[in-house]
């Protein structure tokens, strides 16, 4: 109630009235007493003079009528007055008469003069010379003053009571209804609130205001009911649209995955065949040149498909990191090795400054790290025609079992303008884009790198000056782990385990596509390996049951029974699974899919298109 009308209006009014009344009560009685005393003194003087005249008239003119009239007047309004008339005698004043009689007022007045108010008047009528004394007892005056003061107090008590009644009326009739309305007003907008505006049987301004609030409340409730109905229909519509959208997204995802798979499958045949063809040393320079263009185009197509697939997955936020214990130095070195291939046959001075803890085993998604690493490095290569590209990698311990890895790639290439810097990382944005754009690519690479780093809790650092070059980098905070020596080599993600077979492994390739069978067979043959072929899961399982194999390469998506079904059958036959290493060959590049295959029992995953280099690494690993 601090800021209510009661506090602002009624209480100050009541307080002011009380203060004023108290001041009046303090000041007025004193002044009233003084005034009354002066008035009484004057009155006594007038009365004494009148009695003097009456005595003068009585004695000088022998007319007692004035005295009689005066006497009657005094008797009727006596007010504790004493009148004494003295005559001059030989021994001073001689009391001739007094009224009331027998009071000896003169004697008492002589003894305690302070108790009396006295007025006198002389008269001189021949032999009658004397004085008239009119006397009033102070006690009587005090009693009169007390009576007056009491009357005053009574009047002010009545005034205060009236003020209180007025304040209460003000409170009940004005302030309380307004306060109630003010309290309810903010709640009126909330239609869920059960606030009810009281109905007042009043026709004054308060009643009108209250009725207006009631009307407003009723209108709001009606509007709310309409809104709820509208919202209900809108919610139904939104649900319907959301369902449609989800179906559309599902269809898009299915389409993307399907297209990715369908594109990768022929691409695998194409790149593998081109790789095999490139092994032919008898081709002339012209054919070699055409072959090189075809291989590069196939690689670009693969990159494009991978980027689109990644972008789609990141956009749907359907991405998780798969961290595994990884040797930091090995991971860096591998990426440097791959990156260095980019700079072969170029005039660019490529340098790598590696300064990392050679013993550190970190928890990291190795594939995603490589994706970011190689994306930034390939960008440096792409935008630098000559000059220098320096990769710098450092690690430092920042806490117990925690290191910070700093990566940067600095080039002396074309650099980036300030305008382009602001847009860098937007999907499909490319520097120098346009009809005559100079650089190839989808414009998705940096966007994907940004998303990967964001997922890893980092951010992309970009410094660039147009015409001078650029620096791209990031910092990662990585947890380190300690491995027992007995655990041997560090797990390397989805890479195949090392086979200890001392002889050339016997290999079975299960693939429904005849083209892929031929390409795979040619690639294996290139490395001196022979592979038995099966066109379906059932045929593959039959061969496994009847012959002895060391390695199984199984396509996943096959008619009737998939590669996963085949893996399940193998798992169920413990005698088959014991000495067999199983690898899934799939055009599905999704990490989740790879994880699913490993979980199903496969020892590794080869993602189509499988290059000759990949087969070479795989073969070396397995023969070793």
């Amino acid at each position: 109630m601090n800021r209510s009308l009661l506090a602002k209006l009624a209480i100050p009014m009541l307080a002011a009235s009380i203060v004023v009344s108290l001041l009046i009560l303090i000041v007025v009685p004193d002044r009233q007493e003084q005034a009354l005393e002066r008035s009484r003194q004057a009155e006594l003087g007038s009365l004494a003079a009148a009695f003097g005249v009456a005595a003068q008239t009585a004695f000088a003119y022998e007319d007692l009528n004035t005295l009689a009239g005066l006497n009657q007047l005094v008797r009727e309004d006596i007010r504790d007055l004493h009148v004494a008339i003295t005559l001059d005698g030989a021994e001073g004043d001689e009391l001739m008469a007094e009224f009331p009689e027998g009071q000896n007022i003169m004697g008492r007045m002589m003894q305690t003069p302070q108790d009396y108010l006295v007025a006198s008047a002389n008269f001189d009528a021949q032999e009658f010379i004397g004085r008239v004394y009119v006397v009033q007892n102070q006690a009587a005056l005090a009693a009169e003053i007390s009576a007056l003061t009491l009357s005053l107090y009574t009047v002010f008590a009545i005034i205060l009571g009236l003020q209180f009644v007025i304040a209460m009326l003000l409170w009940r009739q004005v302030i309380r209804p307004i306060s109630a309305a003010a309290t309810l007003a903010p709640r009126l907008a909330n239609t869920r609130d059960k606030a009810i505006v009281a109905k007042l049987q009043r026709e004054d301004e308060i009643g009108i205001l209250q009725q207006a609030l009631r009307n407003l409340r009723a209108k709001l409730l009606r509007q709310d009911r309409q809104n709820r109905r509208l919202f209900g229909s809108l919610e139904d519509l939104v649900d319907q649209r959301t369902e449609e959208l989800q179906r559309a997204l599902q269809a898009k995802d299915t389409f993307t995955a399907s297209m990715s798979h369908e594109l990768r499958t022929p691409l695998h045949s194409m790149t593998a065949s081109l790789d095999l063809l490139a092994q032919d040393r008898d081709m002339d320079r012209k054919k070699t040149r055409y072959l090189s263009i075809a291989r590069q185009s196939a690689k670009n197509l693969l990159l494009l498909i991978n980027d689109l697939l990644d972008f789609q997955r990141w956009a749907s936020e359907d991405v998780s990191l798969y961290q595994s214990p990884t040797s930091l130095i090995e991971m860096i070195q591998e990426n440097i090795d791959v990156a260095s291939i980019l700079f072969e046959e170029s005039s660019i001075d490529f340098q790598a400054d590696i300064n990392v803890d050679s013993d550190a085993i970190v928890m990291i998604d190795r594939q995603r790290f490589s994706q970011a690493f190689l994306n930034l490095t390939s960008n440096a290569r792409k935008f630098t025609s000559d000059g220098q590209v320096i990769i710098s990698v450092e690690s430092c311990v920042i806490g117990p079992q925690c290191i910070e890895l700093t990566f940067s790639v600095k080039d002396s290439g074309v650099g980036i303008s300030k305008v382009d810097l602001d847009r860098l990382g937007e999907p499909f944005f490319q520097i120098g884009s346009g009809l005559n754009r100079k650089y190839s690519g989808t414009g998705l690479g940096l966007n994907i790198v940004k998303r990967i780093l964001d997922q890893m809790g980092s951010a992309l650092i970009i410094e660039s000056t147009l015409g001078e070059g650029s620096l791209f980098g990031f910092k990662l905070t990585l947890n380190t782990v300690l491995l027992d020596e007995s655990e041997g080599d560090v797990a390397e993600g989805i890479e195949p385990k090392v086979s200890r077979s001392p002889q050339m492994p016997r290999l079975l390739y299960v693939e429904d596509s005849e083209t892929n069978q031929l390409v795979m067979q040619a690639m294996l043959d290139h490395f001196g390996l022979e592979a038995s072929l099966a066109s379906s899961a059932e045929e593959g399982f039959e061969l496994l049951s009847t012959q002895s194999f060391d390695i199984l390469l199984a396509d996943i998506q096959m008619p009737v029974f998939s590669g996963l079904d085949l893996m399940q059958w193998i798992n169920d036959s413990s005698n088959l699974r014991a000495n067999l290493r199983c690898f899934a060959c799939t055009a599905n590049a999704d990490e989740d899919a790879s994880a699913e295959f490993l979980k199903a029992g496969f020892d590794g995953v080869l993602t189509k298109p499988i290059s000759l280099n990949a087969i070479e690494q795989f073969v070396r690993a397995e023969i070793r």
Partner: protein
Amino acid sequence: MQRLAHIVLLIIAMWSSGLGAPASYAGELFIVAHLPDREAILDNTELLKILRGKQRNWSSGFGARVALPSRDSDIYDEVSQVLFQSSGSMMQRNWFKLVFAGKANAPVYLDNDADVLEFVASQPGTVGVVISPFSIEQSDQIIVLKAAE
């Protein structure tokens, strides 16, 4: 009231030579009354009380009024001597005290018998003292009664 309206002139020979005569006047004094009630006249004590200011009304309740000799009257001191056994000034003081105390109606001070008789004759209930009540001319409205000693 008819009876009260009667004019009764009482001539009372109050003083014989045995009562003592005043210095300036040695003759008889008479009390003249205009009574409202014929029977009341016979009470000398009541008359004296009225003249001395000891009784304000007649016994019938009618208001009494007294005509006293003024300072210039020949019987000023004599009347005072008769009524109060003191001087004229003492009579004035006594009547002053009575009127002042509200015990008596204010008297009228007159100079001579004519004024007294005129005053008494004109107002019922009045009483006065004169030397010679017979100076008034008799009429039908005025009834003169000789008071007994």
